[in-house]
C-alpha cells in the first residue's frame, strides 16, 4: 500500500557494495548491503566509503567504480538495488 509513497519519496536506498582485489583486502569483506540517502551519487557513496575505510584513499583517482557491471563516474545517480563495485586498476591478461 505504501509502495507509491516509497517510490516517490524514498528516504533511503538499499544497495549492494562489492570490493575486489586489493580493495577487498582493505575492507576485509567482499560484499556489503547498505542503506544510503536518496539522491546519492557514486561520488557520495565513494566519500562514505573513504570515510569508513580511510586506507582506500591510497588508490587515489585510480580507485575504479562500476554500477551494475558498467564503469561509472562520480556523477552517476544511484537507485535502489544497484550493485556498486569498488576496485583498483585491473591486472588481467599476463
Amino acid at each position, binding site marked *: 500500500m505504501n509502495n507509491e509513497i516509497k517510490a516517490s519519496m524514498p528516504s533511503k536506498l538499499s544497495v549492494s557494495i*562489492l570490493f*575486489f*582485489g*586489493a580493495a577487498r*583486502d582493505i575492507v576485509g569483506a567482499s560484499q556489503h548491503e547498505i542503506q544510503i540517502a536518496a539522491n546519492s551519487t557514486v561520488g557520495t557513496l565513494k566519500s562514505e566509503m573513504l570515510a569508513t575505510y580511510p586506507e582506500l584513499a591510497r588508490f587515489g*583517482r*585510480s580507485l*575504479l*567504480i*562500476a554500477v551494475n*557491471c*558498467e*564503469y561509472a*563516474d562520480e556523477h552517476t545517480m544511484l537507485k535502489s538495488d544497484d550493485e556498486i*563495485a569498488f*576496485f*583498483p*586498476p*585491473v*591486472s*588481467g*591478461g*599476463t
Partner: protein
Amino acid sequence: MELKTTSSDFYELTLEPIDISSVARRIVPPTCGATVTLDGYVREHTRAHKRTLYLVYEAYQPMALRELRRIVEEARAKFDIAHVGIVHRTGQVEIGETSVVIAVAAPHRRAAFEACEWLIRELKRTVPIWKKEFYEDGSMWAEGEHYEAHRAN
C-alpha cells in the same frame, strides 16, 4: 562460466587449463583464411628478490564477461574480422601456464593481427580481473595498466 552471444564469438572464464588450439579452432568459419592467436602465460620472474611461486587471478565475473563482450563488439566494428574467442583463466595459475588466449579469425590476416593486438590491450585496460602473486613468504597484488574512468568517447 561462459557467455554466448548470437554470433559465434565467445568469452569464458575457466578454472581449467586452457588448450589454445581448441580456442582457435572454435572460431574458424570455412571462408576464413587466417587465425591469429595470442597465448599469454605466467612468467617466471622475481620482484624485490622474491621468486613468484604461482599466481591467483580473481574476476568480477558478470562484469568481466560483459566487458569482454563489449570489447569484442568494438573490435568487430573497427576491424574486418569474422569471429573472436577469448578465454581467461581464473583461480590459481602455475608458472608457464596460459592465463589468457585471444583468437581472432578473419578472411585476411592483417585484420586478424590488428584486432588481436587491440583486444589484448583493451582486455588489460578494462576487464575487471586482478592478479595476485604468491611468494614463499607472502603475496602481493599486481598493479594493473592504468584505466581512465572518464573515457574520451
